[in-house]
C-alpha cells in the first residue's frame, strides 16, 4: 500500500542448490509484492557459521531494518543475531530454528518432515522389512533434526530394519551412485527414504529395472512429476517449501509494522502427498509443475504468508531490479 520504506537484509549460506535458490527467489518476490521494501541486501554464498556471522555483521553495518536469515547453525550465529537485535534490527530466522531468544523463527518442522514421511513409508511396507535410509549431509543440523524424526518413526515400527544408511551430501550424483551400488549388491530392501535427493533415485530404479519399492522424498518438481508419471511407482512427497523464505519476509514486515506474532516461533507443518490413494493423486496432480526446474520444490507459495504470483517468483526479481 505504501511505497517502500524498509531495507531488508538476507543471509544464506548454501549456494547452487535448487531449494535454496527458490527460497531466495521467494524472498525477492515477496519483498516486491509487498510494496514495502525499497531494497533487499542479500548475502548469499557457500560458507559456515563464522562466515554467516560476518555477513550478518556486514548487514548490521549496512543499517538494514530487518534481517531474514537461514542459519548455518542454530547456535553458531547467536552472537551476531544478538548484536542485530541490540542495533534495533528485526531478526527472523527461516527454515531452521536459532537459539537466540530475541529472534523470530518461521520454519519448516524438519523433525516432523522426516517423521511424517518415514511413518507413511513404514505403513506402506506393511510394518516390516528393510529400508534404505538416504540421509543428507553428515554434520548438518537439518540432517540431524530429520534423523530424530526418522528414528522416532522407526521406534514405532519394531519390525522395520535399516538395510543401509548413507549420506548423499544432498548431491545428486553421489545419491545416484550410492543407490546403484546398493542395487548391485542384490541385498533385499522394501522401501527407500531420501532426504530430498529423490528423482535420481527413481531414475536409478527404473534404469536398472529394479523392483519399484515405495520411495519417500521431498516435493521437488522432478519427483512430484515422477509420482504421477512413472508406472508402478508408489511414493510420497513431503513438503518442505522453499517459499518459506517469502514467509520470512512477510513476518519481518509484520513485525516492522508493529504486528508481532503471539509466539517467537511459527512452525509451518509439512504436508504429505502420496500417490497410493485417489485423494493423494489429485493433490499431486494439482501440485505438479513440469515447467519448474526439477530441483525446485513445487510448493512455491504458502497460503496466508506469501502474496506473490508464480510469475513473480519465477522471474526472481526483487524491488529495484
Amino acid at each position, binding site marked *: 500500500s505504501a511505497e517502500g520504506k524498509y531495507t531488508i537484509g538476507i543471509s544464506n549460506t548454501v549456494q547452487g542448490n*535448487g531449494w535454496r*535458490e527458490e527460497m531466495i527467489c521467494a524472498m525477492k518476490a515477496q519483498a516486491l509484492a509487498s510494496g514495502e521494501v525499497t531494497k533487499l541486501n542479500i548475502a548469499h554464498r557457500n560458507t559456515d557459521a563464522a562466515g554467516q556471522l560476518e555477513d550478518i555483521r556486514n548487514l548490521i553495518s549496512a543499517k538494514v531494518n530487518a534481517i531474514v536469515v537461514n542459519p548455518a547453525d542454530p547456535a553458531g550465529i547467536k552472537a551476531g543475531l544478538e548484536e542485530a537485535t541490540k542495533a534495533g534490527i528485526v531478526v527472523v530466522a527461516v527454515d531452521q530454528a536459532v537459539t537466540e531468544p530475541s529472534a523470530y523463527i518461521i520454519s519448516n518442522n524438519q523433525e516432523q518432515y522426516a517423521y511424517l514421511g518415514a511413518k507413511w513409508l513404514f505403513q506402506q511396507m506393511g510394518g516390516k522389512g528393510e529400508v534404505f535410509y538416504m540421509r543428507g549431509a*553428515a554434520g548438518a543440523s537439518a540432517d540431524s533434526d530429520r534423523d530424530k524424526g526418522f528414528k522416532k518413526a522407526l521406534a514405532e515400527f519394531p519390525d522395520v530394519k535399516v538395510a543401509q544408511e548413507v549420506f548423499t551430501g544432498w548431491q545428486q550424483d553421489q545419491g*545416484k551412485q*550410492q543407490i546403484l*551400488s546398493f542395487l*548391485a549388491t542384490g541385498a533385499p530392501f522394501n522401501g527407500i527414504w531420501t532426504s530430498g535427493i529423490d528423482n535420481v533415485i527413481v531414475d536409478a530404479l527404473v534404469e*536398472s529395472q529394479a523392483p519399484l519399492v515405495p520411495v519417500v522424498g521431498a516435493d521437488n518438481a522432478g519427483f512430484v512429476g515422477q509420482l504421477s508419471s512413472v508406472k508402478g511407482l508408489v511414493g510420497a512427497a513431503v513438503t518442505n517449501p522453499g517459499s518459506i523464505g517469502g514467509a520470512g519476509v512477510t513476518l519481518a514486515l509484520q513485525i516492522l509494522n508493529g504486528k508481532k506474532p503471539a509466539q517467537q516461533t511459527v512452525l509451518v507443518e509439512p504436508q504429505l502427498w502420496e500417490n497410493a490413494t485417489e485423494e493423494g493423486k489429485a493433490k499431486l496432480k494439482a501440485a505438479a509443475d513440469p515447467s519448474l*526446474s526439477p530441483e525446485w520444490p513445487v510448493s512455491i507459495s504458502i497460503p496466508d504468508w506469501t502474496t506473490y504470483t508464480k510469475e513473480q517468483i519465477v522471474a526472481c526479481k526483487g524491488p529495484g531490479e
Partner: protein
Amino acid sequence: MSSSATMPQPVSFGRRVKRFMADRPLVPLIILLILLVVILQILRPGIVNERWIANTIKFAIPLAILAGCQTMTMLTGGIDLSVGTVATMSAFIMATQIVSQDPVVAFLLAMMPAVLIGLINGIGVGVFRVHPLIMTLGTSLIGTGCLQVYQRTVIASGAKIPDFLNWLGTGLTYGFPNALLLFVPLAVLIVFTLRRTGFGRLLYAVGDNERAARLSGVRYWQVITALYVISSLLAGITGLLYIGLIKAPSLSLAEPLVLPSVAAAVIGGTSIFGGRGGYTGTIIGALILTVLTTLLTILQMPEGARRILFGLIVLFVTAAYLRIVEER
C-alpha cells in the same frame, strides 16, 4: 664401455618381481584394482556381477575424463580446478537450451563457456604466468557466478535431458555401457596424443623444463593455451555425458568430481610437479577410486570412519605405488 648390467648378480625372486612391476607400472595398479574387487566380493558375495561392472564403469568414465584433464595439465606442472564448473555449465546450458533450441545449437551454446573459460585459463597461465591453481580457481568462481545469473533467466522455461544424452549416459548395449562409445575413442586419442604427437611431447617438455623448451623454439603460451582449451572442452563433454547419467541439472552437478579427479591422476602415477605420467594409469586410478567408493558405501560403519578409511587408502595406494616404481 662395459655395462654393469652384464655383471653376474644373484637377483632374488622378490626383486625380480619388483623390477618387473617397476618396468610396467600399470601392473601393480591393476593388481590393486582386482584386489579391491575381490575384497568387495568377499564382503558382499554376489555383488560383482554384470550389472555392477557396467554400473561402475558408467560412473568411472566421467571421473576418468576429468582426470584426463588433470593428467594433461599436471604434466605441464599445472592443474585445472575449473573442470567441475565447466562440466556443470555445459550440462546445465544443454539441459535448459534444448527446450527451445535445435540440438546442434544447444550443443554449441553448451560448449561455448568451456571454450571461453579454457581460453581465459590458458592466457592467464600461459601469457600472464598466473599460477594455474589460482587461475582456474578464479575462473571457476566466475563461472559459477555466471551460471547462477543465467539460471534465473531460464528458470521459467524448465529443463529437459536430451534423449541422446540419456541413451549415452545410462544406456547399455549387450551389457556394455553406451558411454564407452564416447570414452574409448577419447581415451585412445588422449593416449595417442601424449605418446605420439608433437603436442603431447611438448606437454612433457614444458612441464619438465620450460626454459629448455623455449630454447628449442617452443612457444610456451601456445602450448598452454591449447592445453587449457582442450582440457575445458573435455570437461564440457564430460558435463554432457554426466547429465545424461544423473539426469538432473543442478548448479553444482560436477563439482564433487574435482578433487577425486586430481586423486585419480595422482594414483595413476602422474607427477603433480610436471614432466612425468600418462593417461593409462589415470584410467585405472579412476576405476580404483570408483570401486573404493562402492566398497566404503557397502561397509556398515559411521560416515566419519568411512572418510578416515578413504583417506588412508588413497595415501597408502599412492605410497605403495611410488615405492614400486622407484625400484627402477
